[in-house]
């Protein structure tokens, strides 16, 4: 029952380390990340301050002072924490199933909310309706939250929708749904951004005063549904 997927551990400075399972976006690698995340949340490493799951890696932050008081003599904190992490990976149950929350996210794909939709349609030689159809026809996995509080990285879109980032970032409203490469994502807050914006959800993706803070979390599965401008306003 040990981790059979190759990985390696590297330092992220002197107070954090990352386990990397490969520089790829893949549900299988992300499953391993989420399993390790769950395992470390349930039984934390000594001095662990937090864990950050990403696409195919997981980062552990630790309290250097606390760990320096508890490490075995003659070892650096880095070596000690690395060994502990290796042991956890060895014991990781890869077969265990992780429950997935399914969410429906309403999006208004009107060019008023998705100013880059006409450009994308032109670029891809498709109608705007076809773009919306492709974007709403599959489920996406929440791979990670990052960049902004609650910004949701989702993957992967239909190949036909792949679009590079803009050359110049522009100002993006909270709730905007964008495309970058084969990633799609939701801007949780208004911010400058380089993704092509094709619509907007009326849902509050991030709320500093709500529990939970974010509507979505890593590992969730979501599907977009198209709503009209009127329905957007009624939300």
């Amino acid at each position: 029952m040990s981790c059979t997927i190759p990985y390696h551990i590297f330092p992220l400075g002197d107070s954090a380390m990352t386990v990397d399972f490969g520089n790829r976006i893949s549900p299988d690698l992300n499953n391993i990340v989420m399993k390790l995340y769950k395992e470390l949340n349930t039984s934390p490493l000594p001095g662990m301050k937090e864990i950050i799951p990403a696409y195919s890696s997981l980062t552990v932050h630790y309290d250097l002072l606390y760990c320096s008081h508890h490490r075995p003599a003659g070892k650096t904190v880095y070596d000690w924490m690395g060994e502990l992490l290796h042991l956890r990976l060895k014991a990781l149950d890869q077969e265990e199933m992780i429950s997935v929350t399914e969410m429906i996210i309403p999006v208004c794909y009107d060019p008023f909310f998705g100013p880059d939709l006409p450009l994308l349609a032109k670029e891809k030689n498709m109608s705007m309706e076809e773009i919306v159809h492709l974007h709403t026809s599959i489920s996406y996995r929440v791979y990670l939250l990052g960049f902004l509080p609650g910004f949701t990285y989702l993957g992967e879109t239909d190949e036909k929708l792949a679009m590079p980032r803009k050359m110049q970032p522009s100002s993006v409203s909270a709730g905007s749904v964008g495309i970058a490469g084969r990633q799609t994502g939701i801007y949780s807050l208004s911010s400058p951004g380089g993704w092509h914006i094709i619509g907007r959800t009326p849902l509050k993706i991030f709320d500093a005063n709500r529990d939970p803070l974010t509507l979505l979390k890593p590992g969730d599965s979501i599907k977009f549904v198209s709503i009209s401008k009127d329905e957007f306003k009624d939300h």
Partner: protein
Amino acid sequence: MNLRIIKSGILDTVQDQGRYGWQHLGINPAGAMDRFSAQLANILVGNDPGQPVIELHFPAASLFFERPALIAISGADFNAALNGEDIPVDQPVLVNKYSILQFQRLNKGARAYLSIEGGLEMNQWLNSYSTHLKAAAGGHLGRPLQTDDEIRLSSSVNWGPYLKGKEFYLLPWQASTDWEKQPGAEINVLPGKEWVRLTESSQKQLLQQTFTLTPQSDRMGYRLQGEPLQLESKEEMISTAVNFGTLQLLPNGQLTILMADHQTTGGYPRVGHVISAHHSKLAQLLPGEPVRFSLTDHQQAEELFIQQQKHLQQVRNACQLKLEQFIHALH
């Protein structure tokens, strides 16, 4: 009985040692840029090292004390003055009510930390007092301090009698400011994962050339200017976590260093990481100032950090003793 902002500064926020446990939701730790100086300022007035302090940038706010308070300023030297009279950094100062604290000139450093005995009365957000500007939460109303803001002080000590009618009184002890001065003021870095992807000559360049901190440097990150560095090969990287102190190589060959308000994840090559013990030096750099790097290893990085923390603990013990003696002397 408050502390009142009578003139706002360019960027003054309430910060503590950072908010940990929420980066998996994209919420970065924020916190004081110079954690060491924030701790020192607290220790000097007898506070717990992790209490909230006011982080000041120059030009800094002017503050009005409606009640007597014991304060200390650490980190940068902005030539602080009480009612027009200069006061030193790294020394506890008793301030009488109706005093005005101003910061007159930038003498040295980039960020000053104002601590007040007993701390600041405000709500935590996610277990931390640090101001999170993007989320508009934490600290004082989730934003920088503005003119006419009032902050309640939570001291339980009546400092009035100790002043004996004076406008202010310098307590007769000071933390030594130069205990860790090192020749050349080099910033130590640990190699990052992509260090080996730098060409051999770029690795040398990173360690030999003098970089300059550009004006595009803030609480999110520092932009450095130097001869562009090159990678052996280009490889698209998917986003992974980054850290305070991470040196990222931008596509144009220039370096950025991620600071307190950094994004939680990034996709640029991580060529190095500034060691924790040197975050304080780094946080006090000003645009236009030179930056030089040298490589170190984990053993050295950890040793330096432990020394720094031991030093803080010693100062803390000494300050607590002296403060107790000072308080009891009046009784």
